[in-house]
Structure formats: structure tokens, C-alpha cells
């Protein structure tokens, strides 16, 4: 507990408790299917954002291909159910391990690339994975995987009629991930990742094995995104490569973290709340204007990148800065 709350002041703890309480009662207040669906998506995207943030935020290696791990997570629960009737309780951790192994194997060569080259390479790999999944018989090709089962309301198979159960279960999982990230953020591992982001030469000069830590970050990042993919599949009970493994999904994962606050603990959650609300509401209100939702979306992203490069989490300190500058201006 101390590791989680140790460095927060009273105000922050209270704010966190209030937000948590709101998250718990939210599905009781909002009874519409639309909002409940939105809440679940926010939780899933928070996990994806936090996962990406380990690699892209803390370690500074921007990956534009995390949709492949998202898809991998979904396929690992979908296909093990289809072929072996395996419970997602086993399939989800299995998928996470698989994603980490996969990240290790491809990370070895591609982590030698830096900056844009790495970003483009991950993008290309994710596209390759999508084509493979579309064309293999084993993965049901473009038809995708349906996990829908008549015996609904099964704890063993994580299928529930009431979407609130999904919500609470996913919320708990998200809080575990959040606690993990929060604890790690004060540990050697994350300090090393931030050093690598800051300067690789300086990192090596204080004894940090840069490639080893990059690989570890990539593995953890992949595993968390795979977890998010598994949960999404478990909730939707149907998925296909065209909806899960596109460049669009990869970029959304990046945006969630970047918009909220790159390299921060809570940033991805804030990003997920804003991006999911924005995309779901613009889609429902402006969807009939065909693409107008994406325009609004794009404009907002540009505004945030221009004025708040540190993400929305830095908004309060920006306002404080601006105010103090204004005050000193008056004093002169």
C-alpha cells in the first residue's frame, strides 16, 4: 500500500478515492447500454494505453504496431476456446506470455532501430500480422472468431449477460495493472527505462544494458496490450482481423497515452476517458455526416499536440504557469 500511495499528498489521495468511487457507481447511475458499453471500452483502452506507455512513454521507443499484440490477445482466447474449449482464465495469461515471447523474438532485431525507423518497422510488422491472420485457415481468415456460447453467464468462460459484471471485473484488472505500473514507476526498472529515453549514451555510462532493458520493456508492454485484447474479445465475443489489427487501432493506442500524458502513471487512463468519449459520441452524433467525427477528432489531436505536448495531464500546471506569468507581467 505504501508503495502505491506513499508519494501522494492528502489532496491527491482524496481525488483518487472520489474518482474510484465514481467509477464504481457509474454503471448504476447510467443505465443506458450506450454508456455502459462506453465505460467498458474506457477500461479496456486504459489497459492498452498503460501497456503502450511502458514502451512508448517510459522507454521512449514509439511503437506504431501494438495492434498485433491486441490481436494476439484476442486470438489467444478465441482460438483456444474454439479448438480446446480452454477457459479464458488460462488463455489470458497464456496469451500474455505468448505476446511477451513474441516481443522478445522480434524485439531482438527490431530494437536495434531507433526513432522513426522503429516506428515504421513496428507498423509494417503489424500489417504483416494482419495479412497472415486474414489468410490463414487456422485463424478462420477474414471471418474472424466467434466465441458466442449458448451457456451464457459462465464464470469459467467469462461470459455474462449483464454487462456490469464485465465492467467490474475489467475495472479490477485495470486497477491491478495501474497498481503494478505505479509501483514499478518508483523502481529501478522504470528509472532505467526513463534514462534510456533521456539519453542512451548516458544510460550506458551508468551501467545500464540498454538493449536488455528495451527488450524487457517491450515484453511487458506487449503482455499488457495482449491482456487488453483478450478482455475486448471476451466482452465482444466476436472479432475479426479487420477490426482488431489495423493501423487505426495501433494509432489509437498511441493516442490514448499521448493525449493523456506520455510517460505518466495516470495519463493513459485520462486519455482513454477522453478519446473513448470523444470517438463514441462524435460517432453517434456526427456519424451520419460520414467522416465528420474523424475531422473533429483530428482537430482536437492537433490542438493538444500543439499546446499541450505533455498531454492533458499537464493542463493544470500549464494554467498555473500562465497565471503566474500574467501576474508577474502586471507587477512589472
Amino acid at each position, binding site marked *: 500500500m505504501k508503495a502505491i500511495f506513499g508519494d501522494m499528498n492528502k489532496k491527491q489521495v482524496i481525488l483518487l478515492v472520489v474518482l474510484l468511487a465514481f467509477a464504481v457507481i457509474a454503471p448504476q447511475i447510467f443505465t443506458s447500454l450506450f454508456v455502459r458499453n462506453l465505460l467498458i471500452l474506457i477500461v479496456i483502452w486504459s489497459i492498452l494505453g498503460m501497456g503502450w506507455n511502458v514502451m512508448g512513454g517510459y522507454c521512449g521507443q514509439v511503437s506504431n504496431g501494438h495492434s498485433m499484440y491486441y490481436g494476439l490477445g484476442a486470438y489467444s482466447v478465441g482460438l483456444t476456446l474454439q479448438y480446446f474449449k480452454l477457459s479464458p482464465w488460462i488463455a489470458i495469461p497464456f496469451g500474455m506470455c505468448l505476446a511477451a515471447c513474441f516481443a522478445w523474438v522480434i524485439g531482438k532485431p527490431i530494437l536495434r532501430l531507433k526513432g522513426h525507423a522503429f516506428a515504421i518497422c513496428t507498423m509494417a510488422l503489424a500489417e504483416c500480422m494482419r495479412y497472415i491472420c486474414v489468410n490463414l485457415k487456422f485463424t478462420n481468415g477474414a471471418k474472424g472468431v466467434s466465441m458466442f456460447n449458448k451457456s451464457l453467464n459462465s464464470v469459467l468462460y467469462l461470459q455474462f449477460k449483464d454487462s456490469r459484471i464485465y465492467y467490474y471485473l475489467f475495472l479490477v484488472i485495470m486497477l491491478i495493472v495501474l497498481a503494478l505500473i505505479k509501483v514499478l514507476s518508483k523502481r529501478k526498472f522504470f528509472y*532505467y527505462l*526513463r534514462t534510456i529515453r*533521456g*539519453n542512451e549514451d*548516458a544510460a550506458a*555510462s551508468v*551501467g545500464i544494458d540498454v538493449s536488455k532493458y528495451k527488450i524487457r520493456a517491450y515484453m511487458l508492454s506487449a503482455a499488457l496490450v495482449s491482456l487488453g485484447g483478450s478482455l475486448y474479445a471476451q466482452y465482444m465475443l466476436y472479432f475479426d482481423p479487420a477490426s482488431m489489427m489495423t493501423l487505426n487501432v495501433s494509432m489509437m493506442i498511441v493516442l490514448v497515452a499521448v493525449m493523456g500524458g506520455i510517460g505518466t502513471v495516470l495519463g493513459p487512463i485520462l486519455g482513454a476517458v477522453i478519446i473513448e468519449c470523444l470517438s463514441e459520441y462524435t460517432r453517434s452524433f456526427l456519424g451520419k455526416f460520414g467522416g465528420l467525427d474523424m475531422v473533429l477528432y483530428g482537430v482536437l489531436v492537433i490542438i493538444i499536440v500543439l499546446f499541450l505536448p505533455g498531454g492533458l495531464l499537464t493542463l493544470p500546471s500549464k494554467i498555473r504557469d500562465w497565471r503566474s506569468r500574467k501576474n508577474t507581467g502586471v507587477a512589472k
Partner: protein
Amino acid sequence: MSKILELNAITKKFGGLVANENVSFDVEEGEIVGVVGPNGAGKTTLFNSISGAFLPTSGTITFNGKDITNLPAHECAKIGIGRTFQIPQSLNEMTVWENVIVGALCHTSNMNEAMHKVNEVLELCGMEKFRDMLAGKLNVAQKKRLEIARAMATDPKLLLLDETMAGLTATERKEAVDLIHKINSMGVAILTIEHNMDVVMSVSNRVVVLVSGRLLMVGSPQEVVSNPEVISAYLGGGSKDESDE
């Protein structure tokens, strides 16, 4: 006294460019050795070879009796070679405290132990008052000091200082010289690249002179400044008059 660092015929080529050619000298335990030479003499290249950032083309480097010629940079840091960079490579988005703790985590995973070390080092370098400041907001002198602090946090036996005095005012320079003496008195051997001859004279036990990648001479500071070859290398030929000044 035993030798902590021995360079044996180090040559480093970048394609056709020979940056270091056949450089051999050694550093004894607890000694301060100055490295001087005109711009482009290959001083920083030599540092990069010692600290593992580059692999030398030929020759061997021995540290504490162990061959470290092919050791990568992070391994060199682990066995006790600390270094600073000519252009400070501070982690600008991290605080001073965080910059130092990544050094202190070199030999331990225990945060409390590392924090203890950070306090020690910050006090040694006189940087406690900046501990929560972002490294990016420090001035050049403070950044250079932070470089030393970060390197010191890794508990080095040998510290490589790459122009830690360049761009400093006279007062700042004096503080830096004091710090070097303080670090040296803790038993850390120091190899320092320096342009300012006053500083070299006042801190070094011995001075190594490099010219166009070759070793010109090794000797006491007095021997070096009175050597006509050194003076001509620095001032460019026939410089009897200047040497009298």
C-alpha cells in the same frame, strides 16, 4: 603503487581517419592524470575507447588487471569506470535527484540503499539545493557538476572527466578543481581532459600529451610545459617567444 589502467598500443580508425595511433600509457591507483592536446588530437576518442563506447581497432586496455578491451560501455561502468561527457548528457526531463539515482542503482536494486548513496553524492558535489529541479533547467556549470555526481554515484575506481571545466567562469572553475581534489582524496583515480593549462598544472600528478592521435609525451606538468615540442604543437611552430611569457 599498482596500476589501475593500462593502455597498450591503442589504435582507433574511423574508415581512413586515424583518430588514435599506438597510444600507450598507464594510470596508477589514486593518481590524477591530465590529458591535453590541440583540438582533434583524439582525446575524446581515447576516452570512448576506455569507457567501452567504442571498440579500439587494435591494442589492449587493462583495468585493475583485467582485459577490458572488448567490454561494452555498461559493463565498464559496472566494474568501476565512471565517465562524464564533453557535452553534458544530462537527463533533462528528470530531476537532479533522479539523474543521480540512476547512477546509484548501478550496484543495487534496493531503492533505500540507492537513495542513501544519492544523498552522499549530492552532498559531496554540493548539489543538494537543486535536488528537485529538472536537470534541463540547470546552467552549464551545474550540468557538468551533475555529470560528475551521476558518475560518482556508480562508485567508480577510475573517473574519466571530459572537459569538465570548459565554459566555466573562474570561480566555477575553482569550485570544480576543489571537487576533483575531494573526489581524488576518496581514493578515486582520475583521468581528465583539460584545455586550461592552469587547471592541468594544479590538479595533475602527470600529464599525457596527444597530438594528431599520437602520444607526444607523458611527464610531470612542469616537464610538459617546458617541452618545446608540446609548445609548438599547441601554438603551431617556432613559438620560443610565447614560451618565455
